[in-house]
């Protein structure tokens, strides 16, 4: 009995966070995972260099390089939600906080599935499937662009409200305990990476709209400028400005929950 209680206590503290927390922590620490997807994607291009007729190498690089930014986007969406709650300004969120992350991540999952599914359909290898897949990928990219635009508008709106609110003599939250978070810096990081990914998504849409014989897809350089370089930039920005203090917000929230549990 004692052992079992001790086991449960350990479990509730650190070892086994519940699914939601686990999911958040997973998404919070996926930076390396995105990079891994990209690494594998470009391995597909090495493969293609050795055999440019092999559909396998083509599909590996096409799908992985195409979908990696959708993974970045999911994390960016989650970061805004975390930022809002870490600053304790839930009441200033333009979209209710419990919906904010859900809406954007759901849209991102749809976009991700459309792009990956379109790529998968293209892997069918017939011309008809290639054309259908292309249309589905374009739809996925438009979903991504639309929601990214909506997301940036949401962030800007939140930023404005927070500025108005912060200029008042009272602190941001009723407790005032979490206002040490450098939210301006975090918001600028989010704006920067969002813009970069938006530029990249627009490039991809144009590339796919031009079709298989289009100018952009026919020249390898454009891929490396508008996709590789931009995505490296995003990864470097996240490496330098990774939003660590949001994690502090999480731990204080966690200890609060633990106190409640007691």
């Amino acid at each position: 009995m004692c052992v079992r209680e001790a086991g449960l206590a350990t479990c509730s503290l650190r070892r086994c966070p519940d699914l939601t927390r686990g999911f958040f922590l997973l998404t919070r620490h996926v930076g390396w995972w995105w990079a891994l997807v990209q690494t594998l994607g470009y391995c597909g291009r090495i493969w293609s260099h050795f055999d440019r007729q092999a559909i396998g190498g083509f599909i590996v690089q096409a799908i992985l390089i195409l979908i990696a930014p959708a993974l970045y986007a999911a994390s960016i969406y989650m970061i805004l939600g975390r930022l809002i709650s870490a600053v304790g300004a839930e009441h200033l969120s333009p979209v209710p906080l419990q919906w904010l992350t859900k809406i954007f991540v759901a849209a991102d999952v749809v976009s991700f599935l459309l792009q990956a599914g379109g790529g998968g359909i293209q892997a069918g290898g017939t011309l008809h499937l290639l054309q259908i897949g292309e249309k589905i990928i374009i739809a996925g990219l438009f979903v991504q662009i639309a929601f990214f635009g909506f997301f940036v508008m949401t962030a800007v709106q939140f930023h404005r409200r927070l500025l108005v609110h912060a200029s008042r003599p009272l602190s941001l939250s009723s407790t005032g305990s979490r206002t040490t978070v450098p939210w301006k810096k975090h918001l600028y990081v989010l704006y920067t990476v969002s813009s970069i990914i938006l530029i990249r998504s627009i490039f991809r849409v144009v590339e796919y709209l031009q079709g298989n014989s289009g100018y952009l897809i026919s020249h390898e350089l454009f891929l490396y400028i508008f996709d590789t370089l931009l995505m490296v930039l995003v990864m470097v920005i996240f490496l330098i400005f990774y939003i660590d203090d949001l994690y502090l917000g999480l731990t204080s929230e966690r200890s609060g929950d633990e106190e409640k549990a007691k």
Partner: protein
Amino acid sequence: MAQGNNTIGLSPDQAAAAAAFDFQLYHYDPSLPAAVVAVAVFAILTALHILKILRHRSLYFTPFVVGGLCTSPIPGPVIHVCARSWASHMLSSPLP
């Protein structure tokens, strides 16, 4: 038929349509140096992100991190080998 036309598993009719449509997987020879540099840069970024997570002692993800450390340097050589075996295979067969 021009080099690079993709006629994977197509009947003669479809192959003719393919030629008319002029679909190609690549309109260029995918650059090896560019891809190798990209793989290297992203592998380094993977490692740096992992180091950063480790530095913050997020022990929850130790298994993932170990997995990542094991995986990231490996895909290159593995896929390289696959590619070469595939390439030699492709010499005699239109479909793998």
